[in-house]
């Protein structure tokens, strides 16, 4: 591989880039990556923001713009685990030639997963400084789906709700952990129509 740092200049523009080029000595890597020798990669650097485009020839890009050729980086457990492993070395040349990220990825999943209580609920709770006038309820609607709702008993408002046809046990567990008092039958009654609920679960 060849790597070259170049300062590209234009009117009022200074654009530092790094160009990489695969050659015969990269055959094995090229085979793994589905690339070929001769592939050139332009990395455009601005602070920590880097954009990247690759091609064997850039003239006559078959009607494509460079932008169209660039592939956005997607959220991916493999690459994000690798990125965190990268943090562990001062010099990237100390890294092994092959890195298996599975165990790290699994550990990261264990440390960062979806909280028990859904955002749709916690975001609303964050909007209220006083939770004493809020109540939670869990119900079954006319379709037989389970719903969770938050109500404001002071102003008689429906704060938020969601219903789902799946995982009612998960929904009950979540409901139990919502840090609010449960609504009584009387408190829930006025919302019966709006929520299309048949009965309170408990």
């Amino acid at each position: 591989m060849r790597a070259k740092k170049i300062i590209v200049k234009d009117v009022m523009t200074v654009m530092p880039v790094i160009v990489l080029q695969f050659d015969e000595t990269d055959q094995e890597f090229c085979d793994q990556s589905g690339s070929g020798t001769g592939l050139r990669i332009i990395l455009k650097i601005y602070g920590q923001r880097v954009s990247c485009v690759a091609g064997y020839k850039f003239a006559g890009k078959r009607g494509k713009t460079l932008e169209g050729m660039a592939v956005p980086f997607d959220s991916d457990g493999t690459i994000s685990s690798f990125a965190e492993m990268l943090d562990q070395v001062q010099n990237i040349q100390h890294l092994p030639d092959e890195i298996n990220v599975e165990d790290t990825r699994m550990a990261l999943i264990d440390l960062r997963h979806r909280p028990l209580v859904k955002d749709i609920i916690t975001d609303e709770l964050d909007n209220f400084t006083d939770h004493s006038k809020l109540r939670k309820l869990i119900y079954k609607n006319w379709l037989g789906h389970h719903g969770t709702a938050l109500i404001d008993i002071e102003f008689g408002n429906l704060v938020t709700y969601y219903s789902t046809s799946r995982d009612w046990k998960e929904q009950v567990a979540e409901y139990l952990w919502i840090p609010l008092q449960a609504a009584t039958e009387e408190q829930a009654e006025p919302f019966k129509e709006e929520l299309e609920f048949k009965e309170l679960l408990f």
Partner: protein
Amino acid sequence: MAGTIHTRTAFLTSEFLHLFGLELWNKYPAEQVTDLEEDVAGRDAFKSRLISLSGLFEAFNKKGFDRSLGFKNEGARLSLVAFLKTQLPNHHPQIDDVFRTVSMVSLLRAYIVHSKNQNYKEAFQFFKIPEPLTDYAMAWASLKLHFELFLADFVALIANKNAVPIKQVELESSSIETALRYTLQKHAYDLRETPLAKMMLKEIAVRGEILDTDLAKAVGHPVELVRQILLPFTSSFIRVKYATNSSTLITMPEFRDQIKNLEDWLEDKK
């Protein structure tokens, strides 16, 4: 008496053979090396040294490298560079940097010996030779210095062949440890301000799993408070599953050992 260049070249030659099991040279260029140690008084001597120097780069073991690579390269220098790149796959840019000296010598030779002036200014700049070239002794001193540096860099470069990379397991454990520390940091406020949180997490860690209602009894607090305090940890250390319509099962799938020794993790290391 053997000079610096001779000593360094000989050292490089034996190191190269030792590390790669292949000769660096087609035939050890003893004559050229001896010639490089000579002084330079005028243009002719400079030219002669320059020819010796670039002759040296043509004496690399092209056949051996091409055979090892399985493909042919244009010239001995490119052949060696390709060989080094396959042997040191993580040092491609450094290899190019080190061998820039060699290509600059070729450029200078083409200009001085064959009067080809393509890109010769690049070589002049590289070796910091002022134009027009009149002080040949000075120019040679610069060339010689660059060559000595090249030999030293070359030796340092190939020493990477023996470098031991960090082990996969070490990389893994330190990544996981870092992630764990970040997570603990995120919870630092809850853990510091709420001793009950720490106590309950440890209890869960020891047991592996426990009903929230049982945990409430064990710590002597209402289950609602237990859930409220532990809620932030449902996105990290604990999982909550349905048990009955009034209780849930709290589990801690991983990091139980670390949670059991929470103080060590929270205090001694930042």
